[in-house]
């Protein structure tokens, strides 16, 4: 039987990818950021997942305004890094796990989540930067990845409550898959940041740290927080944090915090990172 072993949350700032790809990760500006993932690289090498369900959002790369799915699950054999305007990132092709992805799609739809099934999709920095942060720069990604793209660009994104419950449904679906697989769920995006308008550059350390606390200890309360609070307190792009609730919903009610990291800034953004393990209770 497949099982969810852990959850990872991390920001997915494009500048982080660019720093890595351009060999600038050793610069003073970037060193403290990458140092925050040293533990994580060791941790994941020690108990490598077979599959990562990677919750992220597309940033007008695969989806324009022609068609905006709330939840899209990638069922293809593989996914190419997207060309976001400067050529695709020089990272490996992302190998999918179509058998588990289709199983999830089927179970989630029957569980009354209105998924969009996607068989062809390029994946942008939202998906590839977290892989780079956790795995560095390998020739091939060491595990299969199921992309789960959440709309957070067009208001309204799904509610925090919906995201949290989707996580719970993902767990049920994973646990009904007959093959013996170690599965991690990653939630990406955030933390506080605003890329647009006169308020660009907003960072809210207090909000971010309270979010990290509550995501661990009281995710149900966090799942009730309305969009308005995220946008007001964490910036118009801080709303990406609702995606972390999907990861959290897929874990036990009580979890062990294996790692926690917070850093400001990466370009325009506050960076947060959590590794949560099941089996704490």
């Amino acid at each position: 039987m497949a099982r969810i072993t852990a959850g990872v949350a991390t920001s997915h700032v494009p500048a982080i990818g660019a720093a890595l790809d351009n060999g600038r990760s050793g610069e003073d500006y970037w060193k403290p950021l990458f140092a925050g993932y040293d533990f994580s690289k060791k941790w994941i090498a020690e108990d490598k997942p077979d599959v990562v369900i990677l919750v992220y959002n597309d940033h007008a790369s695969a989806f324009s305004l022609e068609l905006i799915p709330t939840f899209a699950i990638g069922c293809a054999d593989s996914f190419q890094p997207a060309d976001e305007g400067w050529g695709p990132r020089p990272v490996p092709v992302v190998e999918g796990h179509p058998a588990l992805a289709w199983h999830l799609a089927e179970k989630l739809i029957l569980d009354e989540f209105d998924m969009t099934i996607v068989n062809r999709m390029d994946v942008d920095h939202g998906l590839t930067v977290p892989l780079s942060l956790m795995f560095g720069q390998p020739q091939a990604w060491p595990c299969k990845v199921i992309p789960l793209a959440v709309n957070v660009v067009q208001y309204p994104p799904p509610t925090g409550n919906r995201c949290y419950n989707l996580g719970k449904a993902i767990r049920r679906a994973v646990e009904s898959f007959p093959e013996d697989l170690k599965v991690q769920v990653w939630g990406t995006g955030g933390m506080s940041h605003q890329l647009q308008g006169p308020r660009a550059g907003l960072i809210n350390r207090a909000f971010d740290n309270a979010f990290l606390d509550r995501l661990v200890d009281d995710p149900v309360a966090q799942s009730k927080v309305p969009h308005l609070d995220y946008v007001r307190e964490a910036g118009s792009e801080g709303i990406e944090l609702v995606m972390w609730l999907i990861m959290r919903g897929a874990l036990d009610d009580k979890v062990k915090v294996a790692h926690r990291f917070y850093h400001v800034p990466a370009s325009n953004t506050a960076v947060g990172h959590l590794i949560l393990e099941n089996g704490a209770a």
Partner: protein
Amino acid sequence: MTEKPYHDIPGTILFDAEQSRLGYHLNMFCMSLMKAENREAFKADERAYLDRFPMSEAQKQSVLDRDWNGMLALGGNIYFTSKIAATDGLSFQQIAAIMSGVSQPEYAEMMLKGGRSIDGNRSKKESR
């Protein structure tokens, strides 16, 4: 414009249904810049290229003027308008500086010092 609770947030335009309807063609123009041949065509004759899209005159002018805040007010979404910035060779941080009315070094300095403070930036009512 229907008043929404998020209209109270200063310096921020939420990309909601109203903005998305308003900016559809502006954003689809931006999306077209994902293709190298379209970037070339745009650079060669911006006005002629913009005229291929059923955008309002004000939207076209905001693009020609690189009026980044103006584009947002006219329905642009930052993930789309940033494709114009990429075409121009500008980084996200460079246009963030322009949109917030400071020089890029000043903006970068603000970010290094922990970013723009939330205090005074929560609510238009609060800051009055």
